[in-house]
């Protein structure tokens, strides 16, 4: 009865990854704004979900993104010491250190889940990051429909 769950779709010829990004409002979101005002061009595969702080990002958000068919997830916020809320990013960092281990163990590796510090001043870094992540995920191919974390449609 689990049959519907385990059909593997072969990667389509031109694979355009769907990437979901969770970013904090004060650093990375502003960094992305700067990339815009500087007219830096980057891949259009990423969709940003804005949160006040990386401290707000629950691992469930990431799993839900994968479940809904994201091929990769990016989490990005203020550099250590820069957090608008003084320590939200420190809490986030510890959380992700443990959570990524769990995901790695269950088959979601470094080519699916990305973490980065991008400050409000790092427009270039943001653009490069998006391009780099997109390229890596293109190479990795579609997130296996057979991965238990993804809802079979």
């Amino acid at each position, binding site marked *: 009865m*689990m049959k519907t*769950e*385990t059909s593997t779709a072969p990667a389509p010829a031109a694979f355009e990854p769907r990437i979901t990004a969770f970013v904090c409002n004060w650093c990375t979101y502003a960094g992305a704004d700067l990339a815009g005002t500087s007219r830096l061009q980057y891949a259009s595969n990423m969709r940003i979900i804005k949160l006040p702080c990386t401290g707000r990002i629950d*691992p*469930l958000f990431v*799993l*839900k993104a994968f*479940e809904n068919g994201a091929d990769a997830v990016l989490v990005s916020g203020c550099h*250590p*010491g820069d957090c608008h809320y003084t*320590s939200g990013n*420190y*809490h986030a*960092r*510890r*959380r*992700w*250190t*443990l*959570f*990524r*281990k*769990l*995901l*790695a*163990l*269950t*088959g*979601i*590796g*470094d*080519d*699916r889940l990305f*973490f*980065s*510090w991008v400050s409000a001043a790092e427009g270039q870094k943001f653009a490069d*990051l998006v391009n780099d992540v997109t390229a890596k995920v293109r190479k990795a191919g579609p997130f*296996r429909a*057979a*991965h*238990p*974390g*993804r*809802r*079979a449609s």
Partner: protein
Amino acid sequence: MKALREAAEKLLREKRVSLVIGYEGRKGRPAFFAAKPEDCGRLAYDASCRQNLAAYLGKPEIRARLPVALVAPPAVLRSIVVMSAESQVAPGQVLALAVDGDSYLGTFDAAGAAELLRAKYSTLAPEPALLERVQGLLQKSPAERAAFWEAEFSKCTRCYACRAACPGCYCSRCIVEKNAPQWISTAALGHGNYTWNVMRAFHQSGRCTLCGACEAACPQGLPLMLLNAALDREALEEFGSRPGYDPEAKPLIGSWSADDDHSYMR
């Protein structure tokens, strides 16, 4: 066992507790609740007792009868310490009848349990065999790991025996029961089963005492301890986390240090 029974009997006779929760001396060693001194003769303990009796401390009917005493091997002692660090066990409300193998080690409150653990069991660790299985799994490719867990998680019926077995799962409303929004699908299908089992393990990070009750309770035999052990080692290596040794400990998730590693971030 004689010493254990006498200690339990004493606690009840002196009315220091209203209930002694232990294991019964019949096949399967089910949980046994002694409310009268004379019941204590039926208490028994051996290595086959896989149930973590600290899980009962989250049950309202038991909380209503505090103070209570628990028969507690080292892992259960740790659970009691974790629960008191998380303000689930008020001082003096829970006494541990500490046992190890076939010896009874004495009666302790949470603080005393922590001292005993630090003195005698400071180096508790997952069995090497378990860690080898974790390592073996990590040697495989992500696709192979995904396939492995898909096969395992597909057996999960979402009976939540793992949750019921776990002293760390004392939430009155589990996240999987939150339906606005319903973050974790309650359908016993791939995605819901994955999210449930991964989050259950994650929610124990820095709190799991590796008692093994969840895996023992799983009717489908899911290897849940692989997840728990992997997290336990990561928490120890990255943050020196050793849950269940300090009744004053800050939660691992909910505290931080400026020099936490972030080599994986760019």
